[in-house]
C-alpha cells in the first residue's frame, strides 16, 4: 500500500490519500495559486512533508504546497522505470575476473527517488 505513495509522509501523504491520487498518476491539482497538471512523482524521504512533486508536460518538476490544494483528481497513470540500457557483457573463460570499484558520477548512476540522490549502476551489463 505504501508503494502507491512512494516517499510521501505526514501532511503530503494524507493529502494524496484523501483525494485518492497515487504516485505515477496523471493528476490535475487545483490550488489557491492556480491549476497544475502533471504526473505525481515519488518524493525523497529527506524532503519535507508539506509538498507534492509533479512532473509537468514540459518535463520540469515542481512542488505543490499541500496547504494550497483545493482539489486533486487522477486522470491517468504512467509509471516510469528508470534504467540504463544493458548490453550483453562479453566474457572469456580463459581470463580472470576483474573487480570494479564505483567512485560515483552521474553517467554511471541511476536516480533513486527514495533518497533523491543517484545510486551507482549495478550490473556489468549496465556499466558496459
Amino acid at each position: 500500500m505504501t508503494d502507491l505513495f512512494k516517499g510521501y509522509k505526514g501532511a503530503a501523504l494524507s493529502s494524496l490519500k484523501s483525494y485518492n491520487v497515487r504516485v505515477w498518476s496523471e493528476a490535475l491539482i487545483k490550488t489557491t495559486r492556480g491549476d497544475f497538471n502533471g504526473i505525481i512523482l515519488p518524493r525523497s524521504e529527506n524532503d519535507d512533508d508539506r509538498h507534492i512533486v509533479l512532473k509537468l508536460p514540459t518535463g520540469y518538476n515542481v512542488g505543490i504546497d499541500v496547504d494550497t490544494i483545493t482539489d486533486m483528481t487522477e486522470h491517468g497513470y504512467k509509471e516510469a522505470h528508470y534504467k540504463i540500457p544493458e548490453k550483453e557483457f562479453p566474457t572469456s573463460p580463459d581470463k580472470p575476473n576483474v573487480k570494479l570499484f564505483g567512485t560515483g558520477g552521474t553517467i554511471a548512476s541511476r536516480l533513486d527517488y527514495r533518497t533523491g540522490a543517484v545510486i551507482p549502476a549495478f550490473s556489468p551489463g549496465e556499466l558496459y
Partner: protein
Amino acid sequence: MVTIRVKVLQDSLVQSSILSYLLRRFGYERCKLFEGDRKHSLETNYEISKQRVGYKPRRDTLPSDYSALGFKCGLEIHQQLMTERKLFCRCPAGLYNDKTDYDAEVVRHMRPTLSELGEYDGTALMEFRTRKTIVYRLKNRTACTYEVDDTPPFKIDRQALEIALRIALMLKTNIVGELHITRKQYLDGSIPTGFQRTGIIGIEGEIPLSNRKVRIIQISLEEDSCREVSDIGHMRTYITDRLGMPLIETVTYPDMTTPDEAAEAGYYLRYLARSSGQVRSGIGAARQDVNVSITGGTRIEIKGVAHIAWIPELTHNEAFRQKALLEIAEQLNLNLDVARWKLIHKNVPPRLLSGFYSMMPDLPASHRLIAVNLPGFKNILSFFTQPRRVFADELSDRLKVIACLEKPNILVSEHCRDELVLSETDLDSLRELLKSRDNDAQVLIWGHEDDIPTAIETIDERCRMAFEGVPNETRKGLPDGTTIFERVLPGADRMYPDTDSAPIPIEDDLIEKLQQDLPPEICDRFEQLREWDVPEDTYEYLLSKNLVPVIERISGECGLTPRFVGCFLGHTLKRLEGCKPWTPGFSYSKIYGLARFVADLGLDNAILKEMLPVVYEHPNIVFDSVLTTIGYSKISREQILSHVPILRQKFNDVCTSKNPNACTDWIMGNLRKMALGNICLAELRAAIDKGVDGD
C-alpha cells in the same frame, strides 16, 4: 508520358511564366527542360519552385495568407536579471572580459546521459556524433570551480529568485509551491558541466496584445550559458564570463497568428521585464527563441534572435520554408518509395574532376572526395526553400554542423548559386562513375576521412526526411531574415532532477510581500502615455528603457508636463544616445537634477534641450556652468519684446518672401537664443503674431 520541350528564352520573365504555366498544366515531372543551357534553365527551377510554394515578400503578405498557411508562432524570451552574483555561486555577475583575455583553459568532451524517465534526447545524441573538443576560457574573477562542476552548487541567489518571482507575478502565472532545480542537458558545449540548472517559477499566465491575449506556458529561472568564441571543424571555443548569470525564460503558447503579432508579443514581454527595473539591458542581455509552424509542418525553433525587429521577417520566411519542404515531400512521394530509396556513394580520385581540382588544388592527403547519387532527386536540390537559398543548403548546413565539414563543403548537379554548382565536365564524369539516371541528382562532398561516414549518413538522413516534410530542428536566424540549421530539436527527455539541490519552498508570505510592490501593467503604461499625449514614436524607447517612472518623477516634481518630459527623453536623449554612448557618470538622476535646477531658477523648460548635450558629455559639470557654456544670460520678457519692432522694420526692408509667417519666423530666429530659458518660445511667437510690441 507527355514530354514538353521548352527552348530556353533569353527573357527570363517570359520563360518563367511559360514554365510556370506548363508546370500547372502538366505537372512538374513532365516538364523536361531543354538542356542547351543548364545554368539558365535550372536557375528557373528556383523561380518555378518559388512560385509553386507561393512565396511572397512580407510586405505583400496579408493576415489571410498566414491564416491559409496555418501560421502559428510562440516565443521563448530570455532576460538576464540585475543581480550582484551568479545564480549558484558567489562569482560576480555582469562582468565581461575580452574574448582573448583569460587566465586558464579547460578542455572537455560531452557524453549524453539518460533522462529521469530513462530516455536519450535526440539533440544530445546528435551533438555526441559531432565529436567536438570543447575549450573553455576562464578568468579568475568571473569563474570558479562551480562552473566546471568541481564544486556542488551554493544556495540559490535570493535576489535572483525574488526578481524572477516578481516578474512571474506580473505575468499572472500560477506560482509553484516549491522550486525544483532540474538539470537540463546541453551537449553543444555551451555549459561545461553538460547541463544547465533551471527551475520552474510559475505556469499558465497571460499577456494582453492589441487584438488578443497570449497565454504563457511557464517562466523559469536558470543559468546563462557561455559565449561562443569560435566553432571550426571539431573544435569549439567558449568564454565563461557570462556562464551562470541568472536569467529568466518566459515561454508563450503558439498563440500568435502573424509575424507582426509575434513581434508585438516580444516587445510586450521585453517591456514587462524592463518595467520591473531589475533586469539587465544591452547587447546579449535579452535574447529570443522563436517557434514557428504551419499546417502539415512542425515546430521549428529559431534560436538566439538578437533583435525583436528581426522576428517578423524570420518567421515569415520560416513559414514559407516549411511550405517549400512540404511541396518537396509531395513531389518526392509522387514517384519514389522512401522504403526502397537508397543513395549510392563512391570515392572519387581528384584527377577525375578537373574543374573541382582547379578550385581545390591543396586538398590534404587525409581528405577524401566522395560522389553521391540521389535517385529521383532531380530538381529537388535547386528547389526554393528561402530567399536565395535552396534544398542543397539544407544538406550543406547539416554537413557543417553534424559532420564538421567546413563550408564550402558541397557541390551539386543543379544550378542554385555559382558557389554550389558542379562544372559540366565534372558532372558528366560523376554521372558516369555513379551510373546515374536522368532523374537523379548528384552531390560531391569532401573532408577528412574520419568525417566522411558521418557526412554520408547525414546526407542520407536529411534526404529521407525530405519524404516526410519538415524535420524537427532548431535553426539560427540571420540578419537577412533567413535561417540555417543549428541542431536537432530537443525534447523533454533531457531533464534530470538536480540531486545536488534541495527543493526551495516558495512561501505565501514572500508572494504577498512581492505582490504589494508590482509596477503597473504594460497595457496600462501604453494607456498612460496616450493620455499624456506623448508621441507614439517614443513608446518603444520609453518602455524598453522603463522610463515611464522617470517621466512621472520629473514631471511631478519639476513642474513639467509629462508630454514635454516624454519628448525630452524619447527624442532629445535618444538622439544623443544615437550619436555617442553614455559618458560614465551620466544617469537618469542627472536628468532629474537638471530639470530640478531649471525649475528652481524659474527658467523656461525649452532650455533643457540645450543644456542636456553638455551634461551628457560632462556628467559631473556644475549646472551653473552649463548655462555659461550655452551662453545663457538672464533677460526680462519686456527687454526681449522690445527688440521686436526694430527687427520687424529690418525684415520689411529685406523681405522677398510671400510666406505670411516669414516675418514671425525671421524674428523668432533672431530672438531665439536670447529668449531661451527666459520666455516660453510659443508665448513669444504668439506675442509677435499679436503685435504686442506696439505695432
